[in-house]
């Protein structure tokens, strides 16, 4: 696409709604973000965490209570949605039911008063890009959900906006189609290179699409990082728990050398390289152990008892008890491993490198 895509800066953004019962509702509390031109970032979090509110403030549907939003170098706080160079893909698609597909996609271009032939060329191009060439005369209600979704995407893309906004665009599709459309969106965004903000509560969407994931909870940002970072090195217990499955184990600090910290995990000392940590010896901290980073065996580190053992196809999923603590363990490719049964007394093995110490909150 011809146009340079823009950066988006969000500074000290805050949104408070007048609540129904008279109590103010803080939907977004003090959020700072910087999105580089062409980047694809995801706002990920449970419902009610403020992610959609941020998106709607960028689009101009909501007015920030405090803070600023910049698109490129322009502060857009006071611009109405029609004056902002953003295009949104809505959760409900929001196709115009009284217009056919061509007119749906051409709507914004007509408002820009582009010449007829240029509109036709652009719409045809974009319809081809989303795989709907020749559908121009159809009415929106003659399409399947996936097709409607693609029209909604085309209608936004054709505007060649500086920022694309996605509001849970795939949540109304069935599971298989969701994966397919996710890949389509990924491909198309890479091709057009438009800065994109994508709101979802589905972590697999976030992981597969984004350059950067912003994990939100209760109106604030918990962590900003690449999919790899948020999975492997969650900044908070919330992130560890929200992304994937995690065993969050309390442990006690045994030693802090300044360049590494040694903690006691279920009786086993583990040393992690952490520089400049303020942890004191004897302090209680939390450590994240992903189920697939733990192993089981007839011998090993920690004696445990199998509580449940379920064959999932690609893996055997266990819950084992160490004392009164239950720990999830996932063993991939169960065919080449011994299977343990409920009630068996076996051993749990830690892979010390895969454990992650949750940093203490400042």
């Amino acid at each position: 696409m011809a146009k340079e895509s823009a950066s988006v800066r969000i500074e000290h953004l805050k949104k408070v709604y007048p609540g129904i019962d008279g109590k103010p509702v803080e939907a977004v509390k003090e959020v700072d973000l910087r999105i580089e031109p062409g980047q694809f970032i995801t706002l990920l979090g449970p419902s009610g965490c403020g992610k959609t509110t941020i998106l709607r403030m960028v689009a101009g549907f909501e007015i920030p209570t405090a803070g600023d939003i910049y698109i490129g170098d322009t502060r857009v706080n006071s611009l109405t949605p029609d004056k902002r160079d953003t295009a949104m893909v809505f959760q409900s698609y929001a196709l115009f039911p009284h217009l056919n597909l061509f007119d749906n996609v051409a709507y914004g271009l007509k408002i820009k008063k582009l010449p007829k032939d240029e509109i036709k060329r652009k719409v045809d191009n974009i319809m081809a890009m989303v795989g709907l060439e020749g559908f121009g005369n159809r009415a929106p209600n003659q399409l399947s959900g996936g097709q409607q979704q693609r029209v909604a995407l085309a209608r936004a893309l054709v505007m060649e906006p500086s920022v694309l906004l996605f509001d849970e665009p795939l949540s109304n599709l069935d599971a298989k189609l969701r994966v397919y459309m996710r890949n389509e969106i990924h491909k198309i965004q890479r091709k057009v290179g438009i800065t994109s903000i994508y709101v979802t509560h589905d972590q697999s969407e976030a992981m597969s699409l984004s350059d950067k994931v912003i994990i939100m909870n209760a109106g604030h940002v918990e962590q900003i990082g690449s999919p790899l970072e948020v999975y492997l090195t969650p900044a908070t217990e919330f992130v560890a728990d929200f992304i994937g499955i995690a065993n969050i184990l309390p442990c006690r600090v045994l030693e802090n050398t300044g360049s590494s910290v040694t903690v006691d995990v279920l009786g086993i000392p583990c040393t992690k390289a952490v520089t400049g940590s303020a942890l004191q010896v004897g302090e209680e901290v939390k450590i994240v152990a992903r189920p697939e980073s733990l192993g089981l065996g007839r011998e090993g580190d920690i004696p445990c008892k199998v509580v449940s053992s379920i064959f999932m196809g690609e893996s055997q999923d266990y819950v084992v008890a160490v004392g009164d603590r239950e720990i999830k363990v996932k063993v991939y490719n169960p065919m080449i491993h011994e299977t343990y049964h409920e009630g068996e007394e076996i051993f749990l093995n830690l892979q010390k490198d895969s454990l992650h110490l949750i940093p203490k909150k400042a």
Partner: protein
Amino acid sequence: MPEKKYSMWSLKWDEFHKILRDPILLSTIILVAISLLIFIVWPLYDVLKESFLDGKGSLTLEYYFEALSHQENIDVLINTVVLGLFVSFFSTAIGFIFAYVDAYLKIPFKRLFKLIAILPIISPPFALAMSFIMLFGQQGFVSKVLLGIQNSNVYGFRGLAVVQILTFFPIAYLVLAGLLKQIDPSMEEAARNLGASRWQTFRTVLLPLLKPGIANSFLLVFIQTVADFGNPMVIGGNFNTLAAQVYLQAMGNYNLKVGTALATILLSLSILMFVLQKYWLGNKSYVTLTGKPSRIRAMITDKAIIAAIGIPCLLISLFILVLYALIPFGSFVNLWGIDYTFTLRHYEYVWNLGAKPIWDTTELSLISMPITGILGMVIAYLIVRKRFFGRGMIEFVSLLSLAIPGTVIGMGYVLAYNEPPLVLTGTGIIIVLSFVFRSMPVGIRAGVASLQQIDPAIEEAAYDLGASSFKVFHSVTIPLIKSAFFSGLVYSFVRSMTAVSAVIFLVSANVNLLTVAIMSQVDVGRLGVAAAYSTVLIAIVLIVVSILLAILSRMGVSIKSVEG
């Protein structure tokens, strides 16, 4: 993080900011608010002011004491309340039976019910009173010709009450039939399955579900009955009601002060009922909780039940049809009650002497139609989609005019626009304004209902794609709610053509209206001419509405039946 306190006002101000930065939207809101202020609030304020201020401009209750010192006015007040309760009770009961028969019984000719629900809307509001006089009056066909009674007296409480019940029970029928049809049949099946008989099911499941609906239709009918002006004037005789008395005091006795005091009492009564209906009952319906019925209900074919309630309903419908048919019939009869030979002389008379009201009424109704339609949709849009200071007031005031008795607002218009800054008395404009603001609420309700079913994201998408709020409204909103828009148009025209209570204050030598002309013909006893005028009125309504519907069906718009 330090807890910061936000005042509700500053947060609401934030929301209001969205409006402020959009000049088209802001000016629309201001225009709407101003027009509601000028054409609904101001006239009402003038009525109140006139009744509470004495000649020197100081506050007084003198005119209320004066009004209530006359036994006549006390009687009128009692009459109004008694009549209102009586008519509302029987209308709701009959309406309920009709609704039940419609929703549950397998009988033929049910379409008759729809017809008798529409007839009161498209004919002059006192049509049945006229027919009643033609049947049971001094020269009545039944009373004189069939029964041979001389000097039969149809005027008074009995005649008025029956006429009002027959005119207003369709309101209750429409409300209750709508609710009954929404009830999921599986709920009743569950009751039957648990051992309840049909009667027990009716008593323990249906009735409790419908209680709010029954109360609602009672209040709706009460508001209509109390505000009814035409029927009491035509058939009330010595049994006077408030709505008529207001007019008689102000225009007959030229006692404007007492007239306004009575108008204020009437207004308070109506607004009380309106507030009860809208805000107390407003959210009490259980029926809607269950949503769309999962399947079609198995209709009752039990002969005993059909004979007990189905057949009577059909007979009542037939009787009402005959009453309406009497009007065109009467217009072709030489001298009602004496000489039943065919004649066209009433139409000749109408044509030679009084064709002007026909043209005036049609023209003014056609002029107000698009204004009402567009204003109604704009207000519906603002109410449903926008949050701003005064939104609640706009909603309240614009729907309030449903409840304001026509005589009160008519009097208000006379008081408000008789002197500068706005002199409109005697013009067609004042009549157009009264048409617009009287028939707008129905369009607003239709618009609100259909907007609430449309995903706001569709309009946001247009906004996001660069459309201004005006562009969004006319390129997306209006096409999506065009069905409501056009039913608003149709309703507006019909209601303007048949309006009488407000405009009777506003007609003049320059502009006269059909309904008013009919009433004065009834008053002087020229029933044939009145019937001819009425027939012309109904014909115009039917012709214009059919043309509108034909145009619309060409455009692919279907209109749900216009509600009352």
